């Protein structure tokens, strides 16, 4: 029987590798996910039913109930949630995994007394799991707008680092002295939870995807530590795989925003930069326009590029923008979507949202490919996007987003921007593009404004 379980774990490990590999290509991604899910399923079933020792019935019942409840809730939540809320959900699920790892450590601590290295493994799992849990919860709060402003206590960098060092030192002390104290264990637990909160609180909402990705790899590491403790191969392979893949993914996301990981964590959007950001006054007037004017402009254009942002998704205007696109194409206008790598709230989030409305895949053009096209574009239509078209990233070294690659919308002949108001974007900075002479502003809710625009176009 033991051999069968080993075999199941081996197969499961292979499905994780294959699954992750296939998730990296659009064509195989969905199958990859299902394969990994299958591997997880057999690993869980195998673990329960091929256990070497006699286990009382009530424990089996409890496990069954826990799995049942988790499955029903997880399934319902994942099926019901709106596509715009996807990043929040990933954050919550990540936190659940972290919490699970932390709880395992809490229980097992007492059982491994006297084995220093096992205790080290357990305490490391406790710290990482707890940080991942509380950090993910804060990230979730930030993404859904509950915790709007980054909260920074003075000198938070130093305090956080000292706090972390103290935490590790305390854990080291427990392990080295071989102290079997539940009190100490829970103090460490609470300390780690507090550190997770302190770690994420000062980071701005725009950087949350990076933070979630980082915490994702933390949870992977916590799972791997559990695998090490039990000598359980499938936990080890799955955990390490996610830990290393997640780390690389984190760096890839930072690259897409031209930020370094340390500037995300220790704050290039930090208090210092925010305060001197207003040093550069933007002069000029904004030009307001109407749906009918925009309709005329687009009707006679040869080429229109749409720059969708999170605002579009929030207004649930994906469907109507697709209608606009079809209408223009019918009129012989070339229409493309310019997708910034971090459009939406996560890399690829915008693609998912537009794919939901059946926008053809080959109309979604990535940043590097679309930027050379702006100079021969008649109209750029920016809907609910802001920071990703802000020229300050190119020409204002004092700007917090300086150096971030942007969509060079300012190179087009005309720029139409749809926004609800002149409120700054997620990064909280002004956008001089709106004051450009070529730019006109179409104020209003995206769904509303686009509806009027489509109606006008239909009448032409």
């Amino acid at each position: 029987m033991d051999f069968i379980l080993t075999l199941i774990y081996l197969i499961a490990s292979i499905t994780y590798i294959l699954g992750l590999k296939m998730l990296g290509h659009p064509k195989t991604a969905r199958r990859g996910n299902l394969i990994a899910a299958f591997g997880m399923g057999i690993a869980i079933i195998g673990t329960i039913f091929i256990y070497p020792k006699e286990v009382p019935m009530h424990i089996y019942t409890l496990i069954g109930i826990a799995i049942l409840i988790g499955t029903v809730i997880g399934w319902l939540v994942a099926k019901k949630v709106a596509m715009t809320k996807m990043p929040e959900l990933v954050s919550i699920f990540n936190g659940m995994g972290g919490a699970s790892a932390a709880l395992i450590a809490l229980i097992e601590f007492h059982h491994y007394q006297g084995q220093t290295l096992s205790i080290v493994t357990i305490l490391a799992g406790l710290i990482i799991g707890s940080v991942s849990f509380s950090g993910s919860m804060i990230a979730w709060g930030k993404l859904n707008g509950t915790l709007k402003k980054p909260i920074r206590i003075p000198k938070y960098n130093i305090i956080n680092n000292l706090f972390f060092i103290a935490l590790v030192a305390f854990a080291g002390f427990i392990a080295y002295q071989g102290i079997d104290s539940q009190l100490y264990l829970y103090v460490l637990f609470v300390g780690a939870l507090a550190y997770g909160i302190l770690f994420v609180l000062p980071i701005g909402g725009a950087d949350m995807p990076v933070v979630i990705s980082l915490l994702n790899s933390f949870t992977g590491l916590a799972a791997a530590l559990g695998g090490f403790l039990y000598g359980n191969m499938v936990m080890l392979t799955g955990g390490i795989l996610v830990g290393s893949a997640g780390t690389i993914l984190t760096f890839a996301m930072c690259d897409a925003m031209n930020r370094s990981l340390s500037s995300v964590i220790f704050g290039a959007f930090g208090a210092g930069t925010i305060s001197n950001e207003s040093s550069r006054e933007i002069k000029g007037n904004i030009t307001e326009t109407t749906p009918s004017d925009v309709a005329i402009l687009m009707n006679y254009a040869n080429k229109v590029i749409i720059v969708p942002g999170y605002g579009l998704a929030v207004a649930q205007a994906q469907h109507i923008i697709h209608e606009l696109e079809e209408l223009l194409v019918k009129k012989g206008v070339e229409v493309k979507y310019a997708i910034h790598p971090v459009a939406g709230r996560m890399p690829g989030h915008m693609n998912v949202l537009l794919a939901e409305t059946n926008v053809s895949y080959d109309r979604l053009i990535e940043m590097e490919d679309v930027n050379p096209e702006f100079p021969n574009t008649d109209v750029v239509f920016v809907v609910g996007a802001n920071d990703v078209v802000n020229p300050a990233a190119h020409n204002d070294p004092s700007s917090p987003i300086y150096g971030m690659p942007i969509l060079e919308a300012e190179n087009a002949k005309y720029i139409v921007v749809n926004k609800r108001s002149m409120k700054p974007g997620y990064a909280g900075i002004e956008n001089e593009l709106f004051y450009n002479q070529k730019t006109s502003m179409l104020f209003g809710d995206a769904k509303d404004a686009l509806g009027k625009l489509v109606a006008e176009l239909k009448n032409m």
Partner: protein
Amino acid sequence: MTEIIEFITEHLQMIYIVILMIFVGVEIIGHVPAVLHTPLMSGANAIHGVVVIGAILVMLGSEPDNILALSLGFVAVLLGTLNVVGGFVVTDRMLEMFKKKK
């Protein structure tokens, strides 16, 4: 010192796996288009739900009358299952949309 050497010899196999898996993870993610970053993160998120196996092992191995361990284990299994099921289902939902149009 002897304990560390002992530890390494005893766990050599696992140490090999850790090192190799790190490289596998790095290689796999290497050249993924930004479009797929979100589903990929979500899929990886589901995979670390493998921690639920640890939670199940805790419960299977705990003393039948240790109420504290059993209740903590219960919560750990529940949360781990949430991570696994929710993670895979949400990833599938994202990817479903990519597949639809052709």
